[in-house]
């Protein structure tokens, strides 16, 4: 098994004015997907991030408030999982409900240390 990181961008969190019922319905889909990953032994471990933050950039270490990415490109969380191959990891990411609200998942293999 190898380790992979899913980087989530955009999604329901950035959608304003969703109804309470729609939010709960959507969360249920995340719960189902996460539950399935865990059940199949992919050991998902993730963290969601808030919308605010700081960015530091350049030789002069300029610090700015907020990530200031286009909303759809804003990182909204990441998740580490175990999978047999990049193909499998990417296939598993198809089950993520983030696409319903126009979000994306970037699947990256974690660099091997040996």
């Amino acid at each position, binding site marked *: 098994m190898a380790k992979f990181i899913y980087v989530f961008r955009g999604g*329901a*969190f950035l959608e*304003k*004015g*969703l*109804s*309470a*019922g*729609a*939010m*709960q319905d*959507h*969360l*249920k889909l*995340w*719960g189902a997907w*996460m*539950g399935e990953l865990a059940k199949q032994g992919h050991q*998902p471990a*993730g*963290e*969601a991030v*808030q*919308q605010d933050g700081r960015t530091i950039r350049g030789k002069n270490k300029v610090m700015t408030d907020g990530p200031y990415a286009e909303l759809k490109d804003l990182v*909204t*969380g990441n*998740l580490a999982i175990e999978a047999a191959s990049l193909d499998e990891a990417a296939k598993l990411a198809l089950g993520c409900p983030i696409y319903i609200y126009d979000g994306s998942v970037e699947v990256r293999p974690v660099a091997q240390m040996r």
Partner: protein
Amino acid sequence: MSEPAKSGKPETLVASLFRHESGRLVAALTRLFGPQNLQLAEDVVQEALECALQAWKFRLPDNPAAWLSKVARNRALDMIRRGAVERRFADDYREQLASEWSLATTVEESLAEASTAENQLRMMLTVCQPQLSEETQVTLILKFLCGFASSEIAAAFLSTEETIDKRLQRGRSVLRQLGSLAPATFTDSEDSRRGAVLRALYLLFNEGYHGSHPSMPTRVVLCEEAMRLCAFMTEGTDSGSPQAHALMALMCFHFSRVPGRVDSDGIYLSLAQQDRAVWDRAFMERGLAHLNHSARGPELSALHLEAGIACQHCLAPSLAATDWAAILGLYDLLYRRNPSPVIAINRALARAYAGDPKGALREAVDLAEEPALARYPFYWAARGEIHARENQRAAAHDCYRRAATLARNPAEERAFLRNAVAQQDQR
């Protein structure tokens, strides 16, 4: 009401947690901010829910309701501190919110689980303002206490989002004139404010139970919401109100019969055709308990009579073994209080079963003159049933056909047509 989370990580969310927490938090914050700042309360709650949507996607917190309360509390404190100068908060909380000394405790207290029932009751009393139509009152209840969006309310009422938004706008403009939430104390048992809430909840229940939705004969969620909110009246500070218990009893009795009301094709079954074994005993028991509570005090309201009739139907082992004399007596009392043609045709039907089909038929035929009944499908269906009991198959058939042409949805239409065909087959 939200259930307290058990120890350990919850695997799934309590059904409707987001909607119900939305209702709970909007009421708690409106109590502090005042109805004039309803929009502010809604914004704080929407933000709290959006935070939850983001934070909970990988894992649920131990106690979701408490998590939401905490986020809402922090946002509320921010809002109050920032707006303390220019905003006018609720009249009855202005002083406590103006001072840092009492601010945090006051906010904490209003958001506490222990205040939920009182907050919800006060919010219901507040949105049932007498100058608002009953439809608007129900719309406001669905929006602010049940956490439904305009589009969802429009779907429930077969209305357009525009119509619902208009009602909400009208409601908001009336609420803006109020300085604080309505108090949850009542002057006497006939308090009209309580009556208004009960009427609105009954209307909500009926929309779910007898609703006009084309594809869903019963919208269980609307019935459940009406019962959930009515519990804030029967269990809260107003637990002594016999009328609230009578309404709760009535709704429980009706709801217990939901499992038998339609067949596997979604066609309504008449009382005679229903399998009484599938009726929900638990709701009947609840209904009986509330009927007992409703009997305290000298009052006998229309709700008491309607609950009594529904109770007789629930208790009867079969249509034939129903105590029709008791039901007829209750309809007589109901009619004396409120001589409406709809009650009159129901009373005529009870009379037919109580052993006086000729008298019943006379009454039913006389009622044909009533303009309110001419286009009422259930008048023609009831009259058909009375004809059928007198073996007047042709007349019964015609009445059922007429009911079918007036039906409000395909489920009703198919039920009436099936009854019409049954009359033909027996001729």
